[in-house]
């Protein structure tokens, strides 16, 4: 993950469906404040919604930390989702489209990765999962490797 952290803006608990609403609203407001365009806002909010729901449904609850990051003149938002759930045994498989251990469409993790600029997944079975994503505003789109 690139960029230096300019400050932790908020830590939001993810314990219920209602908390997902707070997560979405907070991410949208924070992204708008950093100058994200409407499309980028929507993408990041959607990614946050997917990841927060994973934290709730598969991780048994956890929290999201939102950080304002800077890289030169670029402003970004980094969201870190942490849970102490069962963890992901096979991250590669979990990231592939159509795979789900629950009843979902299996697009959450892989879809979230495609919606943000930077994505990292760190999971230890039995200990928990941490997913961090960063998106940048006001910076020309840069080349990044295709996720597939």
């Amino acid at each position, binding site marked *: 993950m690139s960029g230096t952290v300019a400050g932790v803006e908020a830590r939001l608990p993810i314990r219920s469906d209602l908390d997902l609403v707070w997560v979405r609203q907070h991410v*949208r407001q924070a992204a708008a404040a950093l100058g994200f365009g409407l499309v980028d806002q929507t993408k990041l909010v*959607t990614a946050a919604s*997917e990841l927060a729901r994973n934290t709730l449904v598969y991780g048994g609850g956890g929290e999201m930390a939102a950080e304002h990051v800077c890289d030169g003149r670029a402003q970004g938002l980094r969201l870190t989702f942490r849970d102490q759930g069962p963890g992901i045994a096979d991250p590669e498989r979990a990231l592939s489209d159509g795979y789900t251990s629950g009843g*979902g469409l299996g*697009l*959450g993790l*892989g879809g979230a990765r*495609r*919606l943000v600029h930077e994505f990292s997944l760190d999971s230890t079975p039995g200990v928990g999962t941490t997913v961090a994503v960063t998106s940048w505003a006001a910076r020309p789109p840069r080349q990044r490797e295709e996720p597939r």
Partner: protein
Amino acid sequence: MPEHETAAEHTTPASDVGKFLHRRREQIAQRWADEPLFRTVFTVSRDEAVEAGRVVVDALAQVAESGRVADTDAAGFTAVREQLTRMVASRARFGLTSGQVSTEVDGLRPPAVNLLVGDLHEATPEHLRECTTLLTVLMGTLRLVVLETSLSEGQALIDRQHLELLEAATPVIRLWDGIVAVPLIGTLDSARSQVVMETLLESVVDQQARFAILDITGVPMVDSLVAQHLMKTVAAVRLMGAECVVSGIRPAIAQTIVHLGLDLGTVVTRASLADALGYALNRLGADIVLATPGGAGPR
């Protein structure tokens, strides 16, 4: 208090406080009736305030004797909870916050503690300290119970409004013979989508609709769960023999859906509700003809 002096060694502070509350029930209730909490709620007559005070004293005595002075779920509070709820509601209508009501409840503590100290002037300092601490804890628990009732009042209101919102936010509109539409507004969670599906399916039957339009202009975000709900609704409508059109897909949402990897290929989608209506009318075999002279023709 001679009987107290001899019993002090054998009884617990909890049972002593319980006995004190029984013995001084009338005096405590009388003093409380002059405190703001009771005085302002029971304005018709002072007797009412005193009677309400007696009920609270009885509840506290029961809690003290059960020994669960710090437990807001103690059985003794059950009898008085409803009365407290009404008192809190009355103060709230007066414009007081939960915190201000809580402070008023705290105002009941000094009169009771003063009476207790007066009663125990012959007891050992150790016993006196234990008893006053116990009564203070008990009054603190009463304060918590009051706060709890005001919070649960608020929660009940929120739950009621949530239900109302569920019903109100999903009207099914008949746009034409055989065409119904649901404008979706807000986040489509599981409960909402269930209500949408039920009302839409019912109106498909009632209106003998052949087309059902789901307009998502007012949906701020479509993630995989929302999409799953949409597709389930579309599939259910299809099973009823009608065709479903999803309209109101904004550019930001369209891009997000593509990046997310959602395949809405099996769903008929249109950019706006007008387009969806046009599509449905066309499929129904209706032609829209402009009535302006000279400019008449199919749209």
